C-alpha cells in the first residue's frame, strides 16, 4: 500500500498541535501568577492552532480551505496579544503578581517615580486619549 505523504504529514501536524495545546494547558495550571499564565495562553496555543489548521489544509487538499484558514491565522495572531495585554494589565493592577518571583519590576519603579514628581503615572496614559 503506497504511503499518502500529505495524510502522514497532516497526522504529524495534528499531533504536534495537540502536544502544544496540552503544554499550554499545563502551563496555565503550573505557572505561578496571572502574568506568567498569559504567556502559556498566547504562545504554544497559537502555534498549536497553526499546526492544526495546516493539517486541516493538507488533509482537505483544497485551495478554498487554505483561503479560509489564512485569515483565521492572521486574526489569531493579531488578537491574542491584545487579549493577553488586557488580561495581563488587569492582573497586574489587581496585584495578581508573585512579586517574590520577579527579579525586577520597572513598571512599579515608574509608578513610584510618577507619584513622587506628581505627574500622571505612565499607566494612566494608555492610549485611550485619542
Amino acid at each position, binding site marked *: 500500500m503506497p504511503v499518502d505523504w500529505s495524510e502522514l504529514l497532516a497526522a504529524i501536524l495534528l499531533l504536534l498541535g495537540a502536544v502544544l495545546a496540552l503544554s499550554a494547558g499545563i502551563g496555565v495550571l503550573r*505557572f505561578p501568577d496571572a502574568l506568567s499564565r498569559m504567556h502559556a495562553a498566547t504562545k504554544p496555543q497559537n502555534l498549536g492552532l497553526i499546526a492544526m489548521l495546516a493539517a486541516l489544509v493538507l488533509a482537505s487538499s483544497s485551495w478554498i480551505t487554505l483561503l479560509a484558514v489564512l485569515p483565521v491565522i492572521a486574526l489569531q495572531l493579531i488578537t491574542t*496579544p491584545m487579549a493577553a495585554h488586557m488580561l*495581563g494589565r488587569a492582573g497586574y493592577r489587581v496585584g495578581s503578581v508573585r512579586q517574590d518571583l520577579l527579579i*525586577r*519590576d*520597572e513598571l512599579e519603579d515608574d509608578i513610584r517615580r510618577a507619584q513622587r514628581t506628581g505627574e500622571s503615572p505612565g499607566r494612566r496614559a494608555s492610549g485611550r486619549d485619542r
Partner: protein
Amino acid sequence: MSGVRHGDGSRRGAAHQLLLLGGLVLLWLLLWGSFTPIDVLAGITVALLATRVFELPPVQLTGRLHVGHLLLYLIRFAGEVVAGSVQVAALALDPRRTPRAAIVEVRLTTKSDLILTLVAVTLSLVPGSLVLEVDRQRSTLFLHALGVQDGEDVRRIRHHALDTEYRLLRAIGSRAELRKASR
C-alpha cells in the same frame, strides 16, 4: 521603495475607506469560502455596518514600504513565533522549577501609533515577552518577560525589543524615524 501617497486629504480618506471596505468584503468571502453574488452582497452589507458601528480613527501610514526588509521581518517573525512557543512549552513542561520573571521598561524611538502597535504585537508573540502596559505619549512599553534569571537576561530582552523596532522601521517606517533609530 514605493507607496508614497499624494493628493488632498479627503480624497485620500475616501481611498482608505474604500480599501478598508474592500478588505473586509474579501475577508468575509474568504471566511465563508464561497464567492457567489449573494455572498458579495452580504459582505458589503456587513462591511458597511461594521465600519459604521465600530468607527475607528484612520491609521496613519508612514508612506514608505521596503518589500525586501518586510519579507525579512516576516520570515524572522515566523521563526520567532515557533521559538517562542517551544520556549514557553518547555518552561511549562519542566517540572524542576517555577520560572522567574521580570517587568522591563523599553523606550522606543518611534512616534508612530502603527509602529508602536506592531512592535507590541510582535513582542507578545516572540520568545520571552508579553506587553503589560503601553505609554503612548512616551512610546514606552512595559514588557513582562518569563524565564528571566538575571540582569543580563533583562538587558537582552530590552535589546531584542529595540532591535524588533529597528527591523520594523527598516521595513515600513518613515525615513526620519529610521534615521533616528539608526543612531
